[in-house]
């Protein structure tokens, strides 16, 4: 059987911005009116990866890593400085209508819905712009309404909705034309945990039902853990990691966490490893991966251990360590 072509293909992608610089002070500001000093900044600096159709991939990186810039190049909003981008076989920046009809970009920090009117009217506008046939529009809207529990929200002016409610409507607006490639830029930002969970399960459901390819950026590792088997990590515009989430943990940690429960909190465990915390007779130790077995053995032998657990450090911590590294 022939391998289907990747839904998203990026090779040696680069985007260099010219940024004007200004020294502080009024004088410099005045000078800036006439002449600006500029510097070149590579926001995306030679990254490559492919996404298979139907995949959900987490796209991670600290602020300013180049995630949004990459998403904008993928959705045709930015022209790459060099390198190759293909989405569904199209070159995004040409912005062909047949391409744009198949993608969507949902940004957690920006709204496309018209502020003063109920979301349903903005949906109608999208129906006109995307030329969605009435019956398909109906059924898609019904489906999205059910999955996102939009019914009570559709007829309220958008400005009266809570942040989470608005986000649900934003997502629905972006998906009315049933895009096969979905770019989600921090869709859960600022939302409470329940709403985050609901949006997460919706994304999974949409991906299943429509076989859509999803590239998701988020600062919440819970989103990524719940949705993505594969993650792509970038930092300073360069690719740091591309692979299974579990492999990320293996690759970027040389430590394990040992949680020991003792009869009392008196003991001094410094000689076994770095003590991170001690609460209710429960110690958390950080131990180099290679020594885990030996330390465990010693702890069990030396101390009145009630319970002992060896864990990988939490994914947040791993990511933090990855980002804390300097350029690879």
């Amino acid at each position, binding site marked *: 059987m022939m391998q289907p072509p990747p839904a998203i293909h990026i090779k040696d992608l680069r985007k260099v*911005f*010219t940024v004007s610089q200004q020294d502080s002070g009024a004088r410099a500001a005045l000078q800036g009116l006439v002449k600006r000093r500029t510097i070149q900044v590579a*926001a995306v600096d030679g990254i490559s990866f492919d996404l298979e159709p139907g995949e959900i991939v987490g796209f991670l990186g600290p602020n300013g890593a180049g995630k949004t*810039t990459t998403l*904008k190049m993928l*959705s*045709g*909003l*930015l*022209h790459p400085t060099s390198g190759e981008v293909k989405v569904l076989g199209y070159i995004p*920046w040409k*912005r062909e*209508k*047949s*391409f*744009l*009809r198949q*993608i*969507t*970009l949902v*940004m957690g920090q*920006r*709204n*496309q819905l*018209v502020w*003063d*009117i*109920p979301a349903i*009217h*903005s949906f*109608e*506008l999208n129906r*006109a*712009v*995307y*030329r969605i046939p009435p019956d398909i529009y109906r059924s898609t809207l019904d489906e999205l309404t059910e999955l996102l529990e939009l019914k009570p929200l559709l007829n309220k*002016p958008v400005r009266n909705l809570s942040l989470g409610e608005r986000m649900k409507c934003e997502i629905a607006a972006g998906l009315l034309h049933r895009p096969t490639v979905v770019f989600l830029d921090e869709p859960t930002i600022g939302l409470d945990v329940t709403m985050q969970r609901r949006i997460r399960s919706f994304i999974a459901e949409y991906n299943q039902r429509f076989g859509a390819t999803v590239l998701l950026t988020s600062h919440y590792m819970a989103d990524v853990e719940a949705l993505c088997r594969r993650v792509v990590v970038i930092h300073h515009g360069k690719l740091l990691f591309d692979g299974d989430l579990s492999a990320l943990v293996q690759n970027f940690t040389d430590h394990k966490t040992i949680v020991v429960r003792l009869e009392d909190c008196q003991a001094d465990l410094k000689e076994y490893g770095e003590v991170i915390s001690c609460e209710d007779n429960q110690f958390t130790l950080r131990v180099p991966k290679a020594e885990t077995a030996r330390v465990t053995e010693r702890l069990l032998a030396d101390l009145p251990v009630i319970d002992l657990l060896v864990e990988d450090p939490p994914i947040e911590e791993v990511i933090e360590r990855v980002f804390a590294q300097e350029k690879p």
Partner: protein
Amino acid sequence: MNFFRLLGAYFVVSFMGEVAYRVNFFVQLFQTFLNLVVSLGGLAVIFSYTDKLGGWGPQEILALVGVYFLVGGLIGLVIQPGMEAFIESVRDGTLDFTLIRPEDSQLLVSIGRIDIWKLIDILLGLGIMTWALIMLGQKVGLMQAGMFVLALAAGGVIIYCFFLILATLSFWFVRIENILVIFQSMYEAGRWPVSLYPAWLRYGLTFVVPIAFATTIPAEALTNRLNLQTLLGAVGAALVLLVISRIVWRVGLRHYSGASA
């Protein structure tokens, strides 16, 4: 046609948004009324001293005032709000949502916001024009009506292109809305025939800020004083500007997608 289909869709959205704020309707009504009083009052004062103004009689100037309201209404209905919304969207980044839509971005930007209450000005303009024509006791022939519509269309297109080119500058300079404000005060000059102004200003209002095309020339057509040459010139200028504004738009977009963060 696609254009009217989309225009309709955007009109509905604007309409929905506006009816929620009925106060705006009364504010607009009041503003239009003030504007009307100032215009007619000015006319009354001036024509109490003279019967002709730059070769135009009172009823003819009244027809011009009608055109002034009509075109001003058209500008305020779709052109100006659309361009203001566009400039805003460049600054706050929501232009991205326009650009990922599978329609011509220039078209979407141009009809992106509609200030429906300006329909009042348009209706008023039509009313004043009719009134002026009745007072003139002049029959409007098919030829004359055709010339008027053509001149009006050319004037509208020229003003639209002028706005679009200015607004497109925001791709480079981001904050540009003050230019549009300047236009608004210059448009006031259009309530008088440009032949009234000294030569330098006349040229300015024709070739730099093309207000003469929007008001004087259609009014000339209406009052039977427009020659074919000027009309063809206006239509030609409209077509040329349409092409130029399209090019400027494309270059601007390329710049935006090349440089924005």
